[in-house]
Every structure is written in structure tokens, then in C-alpha cells.
């Protein structure tokens, strides 16, 4: 760690750990969350979220037994909320990897107290996202293995590698796997801490197995740091590739409004935007519930607000560019597609998107909004909504009116659409609450690394 931490180019933020915390305080504070009974709010939340999860499985069961017809999908809108939700969840997943890997490579020390939770969030978001590509198929019992190049009785029967949906299968599964490894690798020293602090047999055994024999020796640390660095290196291109490939689902098609070269960067920026919004949403609540103000400081939150402001403007710029190019191309179908977005039957979705994604983050120019958790929570919620609508606008409004006016239609969600979406939110929250309850939500070892520097420079309170 030392060689990384004492890099002179890095401006160390003296206030990353506040409240005069010591190493022991850090261990105590974070480990205690997993060791003691959780606060009342946790029980309320998990009751609601697990009920929502049950609803998810109910809706999915009904879907599989009855058919896609229980959703609002139709001809011409073959994809509705299903793929909207898929892209939205995948996008949310992006912040985790970005915070963990990219900021790690860029030596952004402020990531330490939020990266663990952000990575967990990534995993859970990917899990939620993965539900949709599978269950949106008409015959999921076939799709579950026909989408993978599994051996079959027909030797020549392969997947279609020209299909972006096939690319998605690989992109998302790779992303999920690497994110899981990265997250777990990061967890090892902290799991060892929990093991060492364990007072009962169950915790001892479970954390003993999970910590993979971690002793904290210098050589272990040396290997560990290297492994972590390599995984960060592997993860970083994935941040760009996953959402680029997801955007190919649309960009490689012929449908006006989909057929756009701007999609890969625009989707990546949007993903980071929505991912940070979700991290802020969760973190502002978690630090309040668990009293983590000293670890997840205002400084952390402010940095995330700045990222949202920047990516929000990239997204806004992309919206403008799309319109300009649609006009500039001289293609009547393109022009219509974009005018139809803003002024067609789905105008309300478009303007909701624009307000939430472009207008609301502008408030982050004001320090007050960047430093007040309640305000940033509200704006982050707006961004979450806006980013959902962005995907809906791209998918549904492009499809509902494409080339031949005779085939135009309209999409209306059913209660199963709503139930499935709400259900994945429930599942996501359930997984996140379980994570908060049973695993160290803040990377203790990394925070101690930061604390170490603060102490070295005399800013700590040892």
C-alpha cells in the first residue's frame, strides 16, 4: 500500500476520516454493525423489501406460466419495461466498478469508505438486471441454455455471433463474474478481521472459511495488493465495454432513434450518472441509519455530487447532439423519430427525462446542494427516475412509431410490468440490507490505510 499511498502527485484529503477516529475505532465501528442487532429501521426496511421480492417471484412465475402477454409488450413495441429495466439496472451497476477500479487506478483515496458498498450494489444491480434478458424471452426455459454456446446434439448449431444480444450475454456475464471476484478479493482482509473478532462458533467457521486463511502478513499483503491491482485493471475496461455493448443492442439496429453511433459513450456516461445517483441514494440513508458520518463524510458525498454534475452534463450534451444529428442527417425518419420523442404521444416521458437528468443535477453547482444529504438524496432520486425514463424513451418511443405509420402503436404497462419492476427494486434492497447486516459495508483495511497517512502527516488523533 505504501508505494501507492505516498505517491507525491496525489493530493491527500486530510478529512477523509473524521471525528478523531483511531484504527480500533474503525474496526469497532464497522464490525459492530455486523455483530450487533441491527437498528429498528433495518427490520422495517427488510420486511418491505422482502415482501417486494416475493412479489417479484410471483410475477415472474405468472409470466413464465402464461406468456409475455401478461406484460404490455406488443407489436410494434417488442421491448417495453423489460429491457428498460435491464439497461437501467446494468447502468446502476456501473458506479460500483468505476469507484472501485477506475478511482483506485487514479489513486482517488476518497473512494475507500464507499467502494465496498458500491461494489455490492453493482453485484446486486447486475443480479437484478440479469433477470430481464432471461425472463423477457418467450421461452426462458430454452433461452437459459440456448443463449450460451453449450454443447448440443446438433454439431453445427451455434449461437448467432452477429447478434448484439449474444454479445450482451458475454458482456454481462463477464462483468458479473469480474465484479464478484473484485468485491470478494477486497473483502478478504475485512473478513479476517470479523473472524478474529468472532465470539461464536458460527461466525468463526463462516468467516474463517471466507477469509481464506488471511493472516495479514507482509507477503500476503504484497500478493493481495498486486492481485487487487490486476483485478482493478481488468475491471476498468469493463466499465466501458459493458454499457457500450448494451448500447449496441440499439445502435446496430435499423430503427430510427436506435441507429446512432453516439450510443456507446452516451450510454457509459449515463450509466455512471445513474450509478452514482444510486450510490448516493443508498449511502445517504446508510450513513444516517448506522451513524457513519465520520467515515462516509460530506466530502465523499460532495465528490459524488460533482461526478453526477459532470456526467449529467455529458448526458445532456448527448441529448442535444442526437437532435442536432437527426436534423443534420437530413433523414426524414430520423428527424421524425426525435420530434416524436419530444412532441409525440410519449412527450411526457421525454420531458420527465430531460427535467430529471439535465435540469436537476444543475443544482449541484450550489455547494448547499452538494453538502446537504437530504437535498442530494432528493436529487439522486430524481436522477434515478430520469435515467429510467431515458431508457424507456429510447426503447419504447423509438419502437412505437418507426417506418410505416400503419404499424404504429402504443405501449401501456400492465400490473405485472409494474410488479416485476417493483419486485426487482425489492430484491435489490433486500440483498443490500443483508449485505449491510452481515458483511463489513466499509472497507476497514482501506480506511485504515487512509487513516495511516493522516496520522503520518500529523492530522490524525492518535
Amino acid at each position, binding site marked *: 500500500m505504501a508505494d501507492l499511498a505516498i505517491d507525491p502527485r496525489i493530493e491527500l484529503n486530510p478529512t477523509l476520516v473524521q471525528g478523531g477516529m483511531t484504527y480500533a475505532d474503525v474496526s469497532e465501528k464497522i464490525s459492530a454493525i455486523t455483530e450487533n442487532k441491527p437498528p429498528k429501521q433495518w427490520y422495517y426496511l427488510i420486511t418491505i423489501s422482502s415482501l417486494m421480492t416475493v412479489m417479484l417471484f410471483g410475477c415472474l412465475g405468472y409470466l413464465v406460466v402464461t406468456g*409475455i402477454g401478461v406484460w404490455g409488450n*406488443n407489436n*410494434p413495441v417488442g421491448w417495453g419495461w423489460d429491457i428498460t429495466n435491464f439497461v437501467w439496472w446494468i447502468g446502476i451497476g456501473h458506479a460500483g466498478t468505476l469507484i472501485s477500479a477506475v478511482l483506485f487506478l487514479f489513486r482517488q483515496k476518497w473512494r475507500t469508505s464507499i467502494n465496498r458498498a458500491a461494489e455490492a450494489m453493482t453485484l446486486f444491480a447486475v443480479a437484478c438486471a440479469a433477470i430481464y434478458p432471461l425472463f423477457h424471452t418467450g421461452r426462458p426455459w430454452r433461452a437459459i441454455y440456448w443463449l450460451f454456446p453449450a454443447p448440443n446434439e446438433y454439431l453445427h*448449431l451455434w449461437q*448467432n455471433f452477429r*447478434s448484439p444480444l*449474444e454479445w450482451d450475454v458475454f458482456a454481462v456475464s463477464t462483468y458479473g463474474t469480474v465484479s464478484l471476484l473484485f468485491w470478494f478479493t477486497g473483502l478478504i482482509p475485512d473478513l479476517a478481521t470479523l473472524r478474529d473478532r468472532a465470539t461464536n462458533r458460527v461466525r468463526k467457521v463462516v468467516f474463517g472459511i471466507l477469509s481464506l486463511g488471511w493472516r495479514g502478513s507482509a507477503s500476503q499483503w504484497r500478493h493481495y495488493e498486486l492481485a487487487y491491482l490486476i483485478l482493478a485493471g481488468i475491471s476498468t475496461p469493463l466499465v466501458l465495454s459493458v454499457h457500450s455493448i448494451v448500447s449496441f443492442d440499439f445502435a446496430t439496429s435499423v430503427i430510427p432513434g436506435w441507429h446512432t453511433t453516439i450510443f456507446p459513450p452516451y450510454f457509459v456516461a449515463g450509466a455512471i450518472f445513474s450509478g452514482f445517483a444510486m450510490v448516493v441514494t443508498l449511502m445517504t440513508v446508510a450513513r444516517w441509519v448506522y451513524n457513519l458520518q465520520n467515515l462516509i463524510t460530506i466530502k465523499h458525498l460532495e465528490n459524488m455530487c460533482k461526478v453526477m454534475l459532470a456526467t449529467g452534463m455529458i448526458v445532456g450534451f448527448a441529448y442535444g447532439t442526437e437532435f442536432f444529428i437527426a436534423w443534420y442527417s437530413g433523414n426524414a425518419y430520423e428527424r421524425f423519430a426525435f420530434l416524436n420523442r419530444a412532441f409525440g404521444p410519449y412527450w411526457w416521458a421525454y420531458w420527465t427525462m430531460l427535467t430529471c437528468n439535465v435540469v436537476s443535477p444543475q443544482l449541484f453547482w450550489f455547494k448547499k446542494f452538494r453538502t446537504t444529504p437530504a437535498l442530494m438524496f432528493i436529487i439522486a432520486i430524481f436522477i434515478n427516475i430520469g435515467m429510467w425514463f431515458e431508457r424507456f424513451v429510447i426503447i419504447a418511443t423509438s419502437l412505437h412509431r418507426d417506418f410505416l405509420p400503419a*404499424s404504429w402503436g402504443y405501449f*401501456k404497462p400492465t400490473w405485472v410490468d409494474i410488479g416485476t419492476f417493483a419486485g426487482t427494486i425489492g430484491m435489490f434492497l433486500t440483498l443490500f440490507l443483508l449485505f449491510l447486516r452481515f458483511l463489513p459495508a466499509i472497507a476497514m483495511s482501506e480506511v485504515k490505510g487512509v487513516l495511516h497517512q493522516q496520522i503520518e502527516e500529523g492530522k490524525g488523533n492518535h
Partner: protein
Amino acid sequence: MNSIVQINPTRITGKQSTGKQYWRSLNEVAETPEFQQWAQRAFPDGVADGVTVDGASRRSLLKLMAASFGLAGLTACRRPVENILPFSRASEGYIHGKPMHYATVAAFNGSATGLIVECNDGRPTKIEGNPKHPYSLGSTNAFLQASVLGLYDPDRTRQVMRRGGRSNWDEFAAFARGYFTADRLGDGAAFRIISEKVASPSLELVKADLLKKFPAAQWIEYESVNLDAVREGAAMASGQDVEPHFLFDKADVVFSLDCDFLGLDSSSILPVKQYSRRRKVEKPGDDLNRLYSAEANYSITGSMADHRLRVKVGDIGALALALAKELNVSGAELKVVGGASDKSNKFVAALAKDLAAHKGKSIVIAGPRQSAAVHALVFAINAALGNIGQTIVFTKSPRERANSLEQLKQLATDLSAGRVKTVVVLGGNPAYSLPADVGFAEALKKVAVTVALTEDENESWAASEWRLPQSHFLESWGDARALDGTASIQQPMIEPLYGGKSVLEVAAILAGREPASGYEIVRATCASQGSPAEREKIWNLALYDGVIGGSKVATAAVSVDAKKVYTAVSGRVQPAPAGLEAAFYASPGPYDGRYANNAWMQEAPHPLTKVVWDNVALISKKTAAALALVDGDLVKLSKDGRSIETPVQIQPGHADDSISLFLGYGRAACGRVGQGVGHRVEALRTTTSFFSASGVELKKTGETYEIVTTQEHHRMEGRPIVREASVEEYKKEPGLIKEMAESPNGLTMFPYVDYSKGYQWGMAIDLNACVGCNACLVACQSENNIPVVGKDQVQRGREMHWIRLDRYYTGSDEEAQVVTQPMGCQQCENAPCESVCPVAATNHSPEGLNDMAYNRCVGTRYCLNNCPYKVRRFNFLAWNKDVPEVRKLAFNPDVSVRMRGVMEKCTYCVQRIEEHKIAANADGRRTLHDGEIQSACQQVCPAEAIVFGNINDPESRVAKLKQQPRNYEVLGELNIRPRTTYLGRLRNPNPELEKENA
């Protein structure tokens, strides 16, 4: 052959047998007449007939065998038939699994269409037109296509019933023998028979027998939409009882006065064929005919017209008068009535000039909603134009025909006076469809003896004492004469599924004719032709060809005394009174209600409004604005104390102050499909306002009603989708249709595929010929086992039709013009759907087909999204899961029935392609010749607008069409290289009127 089914009566009755004798009932022991009869019936008449006939027996036997085979699974719903033949001795020529084709004929509204029916293992599965029949020429229409589904309708009548209890045919026959006698009914003064229009020579003979038996009885032939007025008008004009025939292929100028002769106001197949022949253009500079239309409702004919005038139904007569005056055909006798608009005057002036310039080569035709006086006037105009004998010929009516409306008025008085004691309904559904003032349904309750022979458990069935199951025309022997007199034999394809009898057979029972089997009667009728030596030959040839040679009626010389006509009609042609009028039209879906329980027809979108599963009252935009109505408003229409409720919809191009109402909906007693679908408008119909009612009051109810359409957007948004030009423009600049969109650069990232070898399938659709009649849509549904989804699912945008008819309006809402475009899978060479499927379930065949592997499809719907034409159809739900067992018999065994979760779409009827390729290979690897393979949509098309074939063969029709300068690709600019191309629509406007428009 006979030995196989040699019936030994002694074995059945048990008489004279040696050994121990068993008896099955006391009746048997007693050997009562009932038992004797039962024993004879152990072998149903048809079976014995088919076998005992010599000569024709092989065909009959094959058919019976196939029928029995198909029925093997049906034993649960009918009593066992003991005529199963051993398959171990297979018949020559019959290959299990290979379809067989038989000629038959379908009667419809007094006319007939010759058919070739495909039978698979004894089940009729697909209907095609008989090329040898003059009113089919190989084509059919949507109704005939759908009738095969009607055969397998699980809601058909299945049982002879008396007063709600079970009975049987023997009981009915016994009752009939006792009741329909001179002793009981006297001369028949209190006896009424109501049937549909009779086209059958055999039934005419039986009818004559019956009326001889009961001279005072009345047999009313009623149709909801009939051409009685046309015939009456012809009689007024010519002084003879004649049937007019319009030869549209000989006319350069056609003027339709409220006559949807391309749609439901005629036997549309032949007129469409004749008309479209004159719309086909091989090269720039070819002539087209010119069609003018004056009508209230937007009809198919109106949509094809080069000039269309919006006129109330009630004003059509005045318009005809104005035209006659303008043509100056006679002079002073004519008094133009009503103050016509400027637009109308100009229209008439230009039209008159055009007609006068095409003497002997024009047609003026009026529709069934017009009075006999208007028709007489129209014939006089035609006579003045020299069209009689040229473009309009007459034939003598083969028999006397009564005006059914006059008969109904009489019936109404008789019923209310209690003068009617016996009513027999032979087919049709008068309790539903008779005009309201006849009060038939209510009066029926007071009639002592009522008998109804119906195909389904309809209103008339429910109101009758004796309820008899009617056999379907595909199940029964009969015959039918087409409008020109050509007679055909209606031969059954299958034993009656539910033990029904035909109208002919029941009429024979009433007439006391022996034997009463349809087969015997038809044979006897047929035998009356030709010498005894030739009879057998005539019969066999009639069965084989589907037409009886030489049965066509010779044309009659007719002269029209214009002066007499003018005197006769003067004062009888009046302009419409002010206020709202309501006019009644047959529905393109259930027609007059007879197809109400046919799901294919209910889901076939109305050609203009695209409404499914409903009828709506159509009004013009101006009328709607004046009455503050919007689409879906439920209104109450009333006249003379009768009222109906119906939703309204605004129809572009509709005449002001006119409401178009469609018959055949809102059935109270119907099967599971048609029950309560739509709103019944018949309640507003009376014998005096049968086709149109003036002075109708409209009141908003304040409620709204959900109308579901398959098309929600009606304008092309300036896109070059349906391309049209005028004949003159095309002549001057042949490339203009092609140049309406950019040509693609042809570059592709994918490897080059050589499509220059072997068969390469392609299609060309002539938009100039297509009238948008839905025949292709229903034919495709029948051929390809396409499910119906119901109103709710159509509302969600999930209709399954593989070919749809896109209809666009151009021009203003008031004077909108209509273009129609059949749209199915275009089989793109660079198919956007293929590259996106993750499991490669849709791929290109070496012959250029975009194939769908249903088994491989996982249903991501990505292909649907990426299809620029949106012609792919997804099985959102298990549409075929709850299909009734009997309906499954209608499935085409060559096409898989798709499960939920998979995508499907038009395949160019790949099963037909493969079938013919196999046959050609079996013939010694010969090459398929052009036209050998016809897609289902092509085969049915009366306009012959769809041409399919091998585009690699430069001599093929399709390749030649694609060479025309007006051939273009829809969305070809996307570089997807569709194999289906369209021939641009050409209009032939009158330059004089065109100037006005500009």
C-alpha cells in the same frame, strides 16, 4: 369395389341367421316399423349412395374413406358410424398424408362460386376458387375462405330438438309426414317458408313441388342485402324479367352510383377481376379505365375511384337525374331535382362529357340501396350511351323472382292478423335479420308450428319449436347456379359432422318427396339434362370440372325505351330530405350476421376503418363537429319509435348528414365467438326504410365505447411508402415512382451471397389492382394456421395476421383519398431481423427466403423490433391452447401450429414451394414452371394483384413485373433488399376535374 362394403341386411337385423338369435330391444323382437327404419339407417344414406353408384364409385369411395378416417377422432361427439373401411387394402391413388382436391360450389346470396377444396385425410382444410367456374376463375373471397372454419365451428347445431328436448330426424320425418299434408294444412294458406335466396336448381324443383302441394303457401326468399331493386329496375326499363351483367373489362369509363361493385354490393370476385384487368399497366403509356364514384360511405369501390363525390344515399337518384339531363339523352321529360352543389355540378358535367366520349364503352351502375326507379333511370342512361349489349348484357331470369320486400310487408300483416299457423325457416336467420316492422321474432311465439333449420343456434333456432341442425355446404349434396346460369354440383367433402341435413333435404321432407336424400335429388335434377346415355358422363364431368357444361343461359336481347322510363320514374326520384339519414350496409366481417360466429371474419379488419370485432356508425367530420361527437361516443339513433345504440366513428371522405350502419352485429343468440359482438342496427330497419332511412334522430348517450382498430395512424407522413402517380405523369416520366426515394448504395458488412442461381423467390404486388378486400388476409389465416386473438388482444396490438392491409388516407379529411397496401414479410436479402437473433432462429435460405425455425426461437422479439415493416408476429400468449377439438380439424397439416413465446411471420407459403419442388423432383427433376406455385394470398386474390415466382427466370411473370418502371421497393433505401416489391399505383384523373382540384 362394391364387395368391400356389401351390405347384407340380414346380418344387421339378425333375421334368417342360423344359430342362437339375440335381440337387442323389444322393438326388434316386435319388428316394428320404427325398428325397421332404424336398422336401415344403421348405414347412413350418403354412405350407401356413394357406394352403390356405379362408375363414379371410386372417387366417392376414396372420399368416403378419407372422410371416415378424418372422423375417426370424432366418434365422441356422434353416434358410431359403421362404415370404417380397412386401410390394409389401400385404394389406388390415395396416399395417406397427401391432400386431395374436389370441385364443389358455394351458393351465396342467390349466386354461386365454384370451388376446389383441399382435403387432408378427409378433412376439408382449404378452399380455392375453381378456375373453370365463370364466377371464380380461380379466385375466391374472404367469406368463402372463412367458410372452412365455419364447418368446424363447435357451436353449430348438433341435434334435432323439439321444444327444447332432444329428438331425432326420424321423429321429425314422422311429424312432417303427418303434418305437412293437405289434411292438416289445407292449401297452405297459413303456411310460410322463409329461406335464403335460392340458387339451386334442385331446390327450385323441390320448392315447386312443395308449392304445388300447398298452392296458397308462401315461400319467401330473403336476403338482408339483395339486388331485388336492380332486377326490378331492369324490368321497368326493359319490360322483361332479366338479370343484368356488367362487363367491367369492356368499359373505359365506369360510374358507380352508390354501388360497391368491387366489394359487397355484387358477386365481387368477377367484377374485381374484370375491373382490375383494366387497371393493369405493362408499360408507360398503356391505357387505364377511369372510375367515378358517388357514394356516402367510403367503400372499396370508392377507394379505387379516380374521382369520388360524397353524396348522401338519398341524393343519388337526383344525381342520376342530373347526369341524365346533362347527357341530354332525351330532353324535356327530365326535371332535375334538388339544388346540387357547385362541386357536384362540375363533377356531373365532366363525367357526362367523359361518358359521352366513350359511348358503348362505359358503364353506369347503381347500388342495391337505390330504388327500382333509380335503377331504371340508370339503365336508360346506359341505353342512351349505347352500353346495352356492349358493356351490359342481360340474361333471362331462369325463373320468376318475387320482390322479397313486398312479400315481407305481406308477411307482417299476415302475422299480426294471426293468419299464419306454420312457419318453416330453411337456413338463414330471419328472426334476427328481418326488418323490425315485420315483428317476426315476437310473432313467431304465437305461431302454432315453427320449424327452423339452421347452421348455428341462432335467434331463429331459439324461437322455434322444431330445431333442426343444418349441414354445411361442404357436408351436403346440392347444386347451385351462378348468376349467368352456369350450374355446378355441390359435392360433399365430409360426412355431416353433426348429422345435419341440407335445406334441400328438409324441403324434400316437407314436400313429401321420395327419396329425400340430397344426392338422389341432385342426381335426378342433373339427369334431366342430356340423353340417358350421356347422363353418366355429364354427371362425372360435372363433378370433375365443377361446372355443368352448357348450362349457361344465353343473353337476351333487351331494348330500353328511355321515354317510357322517364315517365315511369318522374316524380319517383327525389332529393333526400334535410336532416340525418341512416343507410345500411353489409359488413365486410360477419356480412349480415351469418359469419358472426366466424372468428376469422370478426378479426378481419374492416377495409377502410380497420375496426375489428365491432361495427361502428360512420359519419363525416363535419357532421361529427355539428353534433359535437368524437370517435367512440355512444349515440342513440331513433326513427318512428324504433331506436338503436351504436358507437360512432369519423370516416374521412364520408358524406355529410349521413350515417353508415353495418349489419350483422349484436347477435343475441350466437356461438361463443359472435355473442354480443358489436351493436345490432337491424332494429332500425323496416320494410319501408330497408336500405336507408331519412329523418333519423341522433342523441348522445354521454357514454363512450372502446373501438379497437388494427391501424391507429392513417397518414403516410410524407414517406414514400405507397407511391402513386397519374397515368400522364407516368407516361411522361416513367422513372418518377422509383425516384421517390433514394437508392441504397448496396454496401454491406456481411459476406456476399450469390442469389443468381437456382430458384429465387420473389413477389410483386400491383397496387393499381389491389382493392383491399381482405381475401388474402383470410386465405393466409386459413393456409398458415394463424390464430385469432380477440378484441382485447388486438387492442393491445397483438393481432397475428401475417399479411395486413395498410390503408392510408391522402388529401384533406373531407375529400380523403385512400390507398391500400398489402404488407407481409418482404423476405429482405439483407434482413435486419436475421442478424439480431441471438440463437439464429431466423435465417436466409439459398432460395432467398427468410426462414423461421420455430423450434429454435426463444422469443427475444429483437427481430420484431428490428423489422422495419413490423410484419413479424409474436405469440404473446398461448393462442392455440384452448382451441376446441373440432376446430383443430381445420388446421393445415403442412404448417406447424406455433406455441406461445415464438415469433412467426409470412413464409411465402414455403410449404407450397416445397410441395411443388418435391412433385417436380418426382417428375424426373424437371424445373418448376412459372405459376406452378401460388402463395395462398396470390391464389385467392380476385384482382390478381399478387404475383409470386422465381425472379431468376427472366420469363416469369414476377420477373417481368419487376422490370416495369413503376416497380419499387418499400423502404428499399435502408439497403435491406426486400424480395417483395410493389408496382406503383396509377390514377387516371379526368383532366377537367383535376384542374378543379388543383
